[in-house]
């Protein structure tokens, strides 16, 4: 029993997860009644494949929010990884392409981490800056246009990551699950994970307890940007091309929104990656359900926005009671 309660520290069934949990359940019930197609294997596989990159992005974003910060550069990292991977792959095959692309993503993440953890600039400012820097670099590198016509057979491997299957299991979903499992273990069972909560709970207490707060912050942004890099690689593979605007849409805002809807506190210190999974599923299934019902995308945006505010409001009511 003790062990079970322990998991509770981060992912327990508690008031914060009841809200999104109920929302997900209610949505599944309503949509499956309204649309016979909703609960088919085909549809669910489709939703999961589509949301795999978001799962990975949001899992990384969870670190930044747990620390009491956020990572605005995730979308731009996706774009940068996409064009660099594709560009290098054109001449040097997929392995070098992947190394260069993911390396570029890690480079931006490391820059974030050093500016936040060592130079002690606020995460909002730093990642707002690197949002522009990485987006700009992606445009400069690609000359502003998409990179098509990747060589065979590399292009098939590339697609395999983003859109392939192992038996009935989509590769991207498998990768997302592995990333989430790894992050869950890091957050619940490692010193670094605990330090993330400590820094988010109270930075000054963390310092006074001997925690190297600067180092923890560098690692947090490496994880967040690293996840964005992986997501960028998968998204790019799915469209078998390098797209300088791949991450410029609302994927960044969805990533932050999913973490918040999942119930991780924007003040840091409370939450976890399983909550984020819940948040991503809420967004993904809602968008899918509304699509099936032919409700237009603009109305969907209104609903996502309302849900973000609602979930924070509900959490702040709970907070005020204690």
């Amino acid at each position, binding site marked *: 029993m003790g062990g079970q309660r322990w998991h509770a*520290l981060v992912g327990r069934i508690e008031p914060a997860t009841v809200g999104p949990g109920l929302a997900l359940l209610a949505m599944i019930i309503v949509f499956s009644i309204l649309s016979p197609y909703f609960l088919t294997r085909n549809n669910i596989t489709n939703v999961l494949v589509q949301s795999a990159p978001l799962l990975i992005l949001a899992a990384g974003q969870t670190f930044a929010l747990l620390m009491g910060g956020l990572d605005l550069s995730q979308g731009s990292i996706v774009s940068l990884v996409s064009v660099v991977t594709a560009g290098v792959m054109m001449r040097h095959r997929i392995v070098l392409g992947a190394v260069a692309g993911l390396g570029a993503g890690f480079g931006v993440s490391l820059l974030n981490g050093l500016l936040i953890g060592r130079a002690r600039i606020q995460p909002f400012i730093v990642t707002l800056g690197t949002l522009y820097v990485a987006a700009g670099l992606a445009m400069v590198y690609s000359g502003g246009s998409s990179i098509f016509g990747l060589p065979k057979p590399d292009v098939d491997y590339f697609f395999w990551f983003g859109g392939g299957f192992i038996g009935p299991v989509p590769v991207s979903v498998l990768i997302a699950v592995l990333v989430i499992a790894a992050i869950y273990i890091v957050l619940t069972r490692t010193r670094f994970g605990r330090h993330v909560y400590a820094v988010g*709970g109270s930075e000054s207490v963390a310092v006074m307890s001997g925690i190297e707060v600067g180092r923890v912050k560098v690692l947090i942004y490496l994880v967040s940007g690293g996840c964005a890099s992986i997501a960028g690689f998968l998204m790019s593979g799915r469209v078998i091309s390098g797209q300088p605007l791949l991450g410029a849409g609302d994927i960044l805002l969805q990533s932050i929104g999913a973490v918040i809807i999942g119930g991780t506190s924007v003040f840091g210190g409370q939450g976890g990656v399983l909550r984020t999974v819940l948040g991503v599923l809420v967004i993904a299934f809602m968008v899918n359900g509304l699509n099936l019902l032919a409700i237009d995308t603009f109305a969907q945006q209104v609903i996502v926005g309302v849900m973000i505010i609602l979930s924070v409001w509900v959490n702040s009511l709970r907070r005020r009671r204690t």
Partner: protein
Amino acid sequence: MTGAAIPANVATADAILELRGLHKKFPGVVALDKVDFDVRRGEVHALLGANGAGKSTLIKIVAGLYRADAGEIRIDGRPVELRDTQTARALGVSVIYQDLALVPHLSVAENLFLGHELMTPLGLIDWRRTHAEARRLLAPLGIDIPTDAKISSLSMGQRQLVEIAKAFGIEAKLLVLDEPTASLSRGEAESLFVLIRKLAQSGVGIIYVSHRLEEIAPLVNRVTVLRDGRSVGTYPVDQLDRRNVVALITGQDWRSSERSRRSARSIGEPLLELHHLGRAREFEDISLTLRRSEILVLTGLVGAGRTELLETIFGARRAATGEIRIGGKTVKFAGPRDAIRSGIALLPEDRRGHGLAVILPVVANMTLASLGQFVGRLLLHPKQELQHARRMIGELAIKTPSPFQAAGLLSGGNQQKLVLAKWLSTSAEIFLLDEPTQGVDVGTKDEIYRLIRGLAASGKAVLVVSSDLEEVLEIGDRILAIRRGRIVGEFRNDALDPSLLVDAITHGQAA
């Protein structure tokens, strides 16, 4: 210095504020227990008491910040309900806290009219009138500060004066000053006293919270002493001398009491040595030796540089001069992390700011400084960690519904025990305890004293900072008095006359 300007009619003047049977309970602590208190028109009434005696609870009730559980509050003879700070303000109550409520980047005039700005007919701020009115407010009070000066450019004393002028601007009938001289120089304090006398002469009633009687004796008319949430009496100031004030505040006649509880511990070799340690404007030339099995108490008033000294030893601040030796070796810490590795633990004064992450569970707080013990080859062992937490909760009798409870939901005393448990979980040899029983109920106080003695008995070295005289005499083997950042006296705690200590702390006279 004596012969304060006491209006002749004070003794018969009607009361501005009357508190009858005031009662306030917090989880685990009775903060105020049937307290009676009153302030008359034109009177300066001192409220004295040790830390945790209930002074701040009382003024927070008068300010409308807390609501009393029971009791009656009358203002100008009429029963009132102080529901919130606005209600209290509307009734003429103005409270000036230690941390002033001025906006640093705005000017004196802007601060004086903050929230009730003077407008032109067009709805814009009328700057000419604002500055003119500000000058009109400051002049009769004898405050000579340009009205366009930024608050951040003023000294603490000047800020204090502006704050009082602000209270006067909203026509306060009752002014509450919470240790206003704590961070003032002597000259600044004098000009503050001049202003207070002026206000009293104009008919304002003043509550003056302090723990130094000597300083305020020429200023006040009556004195009320609180102890452990009860009023132990109200006296005209001329009926008291320092000695009976100390007795009233601590509740013990020290001359006759015997401190028999001190066991015969044999003090060991030096663990921590400070040599001429100094930091600009905080403390200077501090030299001391702390030995194994010894409890050394550093006492002095708030603002005497004590917390800063402990934080410097702990590596959270950098010393400007001097050196720190541990076990005979000179050390230079880049941060608390290094200090912890060298076996130092710091129980901070600011428990919620530096001691506990209040939103994290009890267990996570407990192991925050000792997590390495629970890591296997790669991963944490949650079971061991939990076992350890349960054991510590039992040993220290920490009252919590579960180890997963958020630390911030525990009572003050249990939070403090949790911070202690956090450091007991490390392998620290040197314990720095900053006001270890502040905001802690009486029962838990004794438990904490027992823990501190237990630490010394097991061979640890303990350096306690405390401004609670009773506590200082209760636990210290040796006592150092610190005043304005300098050590002004050293006392062996046997047959020590507390008034010598009080003298050293307040006047800097060494024994």
